[in-house]
């Protein structure tokens, strides 16, 4: 037997042990398969940064045909669910009680201003607590009014056309559907959770159950131990990833414009970085629950807040931007956004891939050293 045969023999042994353990303790498989499903459904259906059927009150203090037409435009808009109220006081009360999100108010002098002074006001009051939503509502209201102006123009009525009009193109996501960028980001989050959580528990588990000693007395070397811990979970995590991508594309109709090969290679890098991070936690902390909590605080939360998944990184203070560079999810969010919506644009993908590669090597290397120490000491 050459040393190579021995190495493979040992590796086969520990792999077999891990696979059996995974198969007989289905919670890991559940974590890898059920978690993505649950998360995708919650996020995919529950979260959208777009607003639809926003309840707004329309208060018409002017009964002229033009005012009624404006109000009808709001009724017809798919973005609004209008409720007609007669007084602004009542509408104010409703807004305070959160029964509506906004008020569209046409004052009594609307039509006389419109034709007498050539400029009439439409007042839109929104509830600003959720600033993002409020801004969207303002934008939709503006759109409704613009449509009305275009309609009047098409009918040949004299209208004031703005001197400069904006013609906007949103590349990669023409209609600006937030789901198209939330779902790829979500896949990053799922992979972070699977990768870190699955492995954060495995070494801690050996310590907690006292089976570490049993492993210590076997001829398994630390490289075998590491590989045996990483490989099965790697495959499990990649399965979870493929499942999420498949659901994202088929169920949520998120476009996928990159190549599958690129996705596989790049997500493998990210998976390795996550697994390495999880292993590092796991090797350092011997209690499973604490390891899990730490992996949530140190892995999951930063992946959510500091990755550009929901909040734009470039708008944060410089310090935060610098801190975000140590979060592996940051690089994969950029990768998945580009892969899904823009395609294989290597100048964007490559630097991120390199960063992920570096992090994978770093984390696995650190975990390797940590495991060594523990085994010897």
């Amino acid at each position: 037997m050459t040393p190579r045969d021995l190495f493979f023999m040992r590796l086969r042994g520990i792999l077999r042990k891990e696979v059996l353990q995974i198969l007989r303790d289905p919670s890991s498989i559940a974590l890898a398969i059920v978690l993505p499903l649950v998360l995708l459904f919650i996020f995919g259906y529950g979260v959208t940064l777009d607003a639809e059927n926003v309840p707004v009150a329309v208060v018409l203090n002017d009964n002229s045909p033009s005012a009624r037409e404006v109000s009808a435009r709001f009724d017809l808009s798919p973005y609004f669910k209008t409720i007609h109220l007669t007084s602004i006081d009542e509408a104010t009360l409703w807004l305070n009680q959160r029964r509506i999100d906004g008020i569209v108010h046409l004052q009594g002098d609307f039509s006389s201003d419109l034709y007498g002074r050539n400029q009439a006001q439409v007042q839109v009051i929104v509830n600003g607590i959720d600033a993002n939503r409020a801004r969207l509502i303002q934008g939709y209201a503006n759109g409704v009014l613009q449509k009305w102006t275009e309609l009047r123009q098409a009918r040949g009525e004299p209208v004031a056309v703005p001197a400069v009009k904006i013609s906007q193109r949103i590349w990669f996501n023409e209609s600006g559907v937030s789901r198209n960028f939330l779902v790829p980001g979500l896949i990053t989050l799922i992979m972070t959770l699977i990768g870190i959580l699955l492995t954060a528990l495995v070494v801690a588990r050996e310590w907690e159950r006292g089976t570490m000693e049993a492993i210590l007395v076997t001829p398994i070397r630390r490289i075998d131990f590491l590989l045996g811990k990483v490989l099965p979970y790697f495959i499990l995590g990649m399965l979870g990833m493929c499942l999420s991508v498949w659901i994202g594309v088929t169920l949520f109709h998120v476009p996928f414009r990159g190549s599958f090969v690129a996705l596989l290679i790049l997500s493998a890098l990210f998976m390795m970085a996550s697994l390495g991070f999880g292993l590092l936690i796991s090797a350092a902390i011997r209690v499973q629950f604490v390891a899990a909590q730490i992996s949530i605080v140190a892995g999951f939360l930063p992946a959510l807040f500091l990755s550009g998944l929901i909040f734009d990184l470039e708008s944060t203070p410089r310090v935060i931007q610098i801190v975000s560079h140590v979060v592996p999810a940051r690089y994969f969010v950029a990768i998945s956004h580009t892969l899904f919506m823009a395609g294989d644009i290597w100048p964007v993908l490559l630097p991120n891939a390199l960063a992920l590669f570096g992090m994978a090597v770093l984390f696995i290397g650190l975990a390797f050293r940590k495991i060594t120490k523990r085994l010897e000491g």
Partner: protein
Amino acid sequence: MDTVRRIIALMLKEFVMVLKDPKSRFVIIGPPLIQFFVFGYAATYDLKNVRYAVFDESRTVESRQLLARFEGSENFELTKTLLSEKEIDFVINREKARLVVHIGPKFSRDLHNGRSTTLQVIVDGRNSNVALIALGYIGRIVEQYNQDLVKNGVISMDGPGVLLTDRAWFNANLQSRWFIVSALGGLISMVVVMILTSLSVAREREFGTFDQLLVAPFNPAEILVGKSLPGMFFGIMDALLFAAGAVYWFGVPFRGTVTTLVLALGCFILTIVGVGLLGGMGFTMSIFISSLGFTSETETLIAAKTAILLASLFAGVSGFLWLRFSGTAEGGGGTRR
């Protein structure tokens, strides 16, 4: 009466253990503070320094006046001046800029002839939220420019038009940070509560003192209450600290009453310690708190999508972990697989 005495005894022991153990002490103060500031600054939808490129084919006084408004805005940051249409592709695809402002060659001629002209804006839609918000900012800039053109007599208004005047209540400048930071304290203190409670159980197991607890004259309910109350206390203290931080550091207004906030926080933390760990129940509460305490006196379920999501996700995961691990812990090791 005996029950109360036993619970108090257990609580005292837990308090002492938390305060004497450097690890627990750190859990209460260190990470939560870091998270509060890091996430508080990171969690905003408002855009700053959006990198944009300019492709100005007109190169006239008018086009430069319009572009100057972009340069003057703190929302935008000019990165590149393009010389050909082909570069637009390059710049957007490679994320060199997030949007390109394109002014056509006829821009100023059209304006002087009294015709309306277009300003083309191409945005990178990879983050559609950023794209839409940036387009909103541009809309404002151009609207202002149009009004100034009329005011300065460059062009004249030749027909009836409507003007949208909008106001946002409770948050006049639409700072999304207010919305998120006000709920952040609840989210973080929830984590603190969970870690503290789990640490206290894990430690008993590690030192083998859980068996002692089992033979002591406590019934299971008393152990549960005694173990969760200290966590609740620290959780509420943390949450109040972060509420103060939100008001005094991040400048979030506080328009409710402190009593309501404390009451709501109490309910919230209680849900977390109890049912909240298993389901997503607690999360509606965190939103409830943020709107109740900070912005108006009325309750809401509709708003706060992001926060609810983060939170229920959290609850789900922690509930799962709680079931998985504390179950074995309280079984005294008998159910270890």
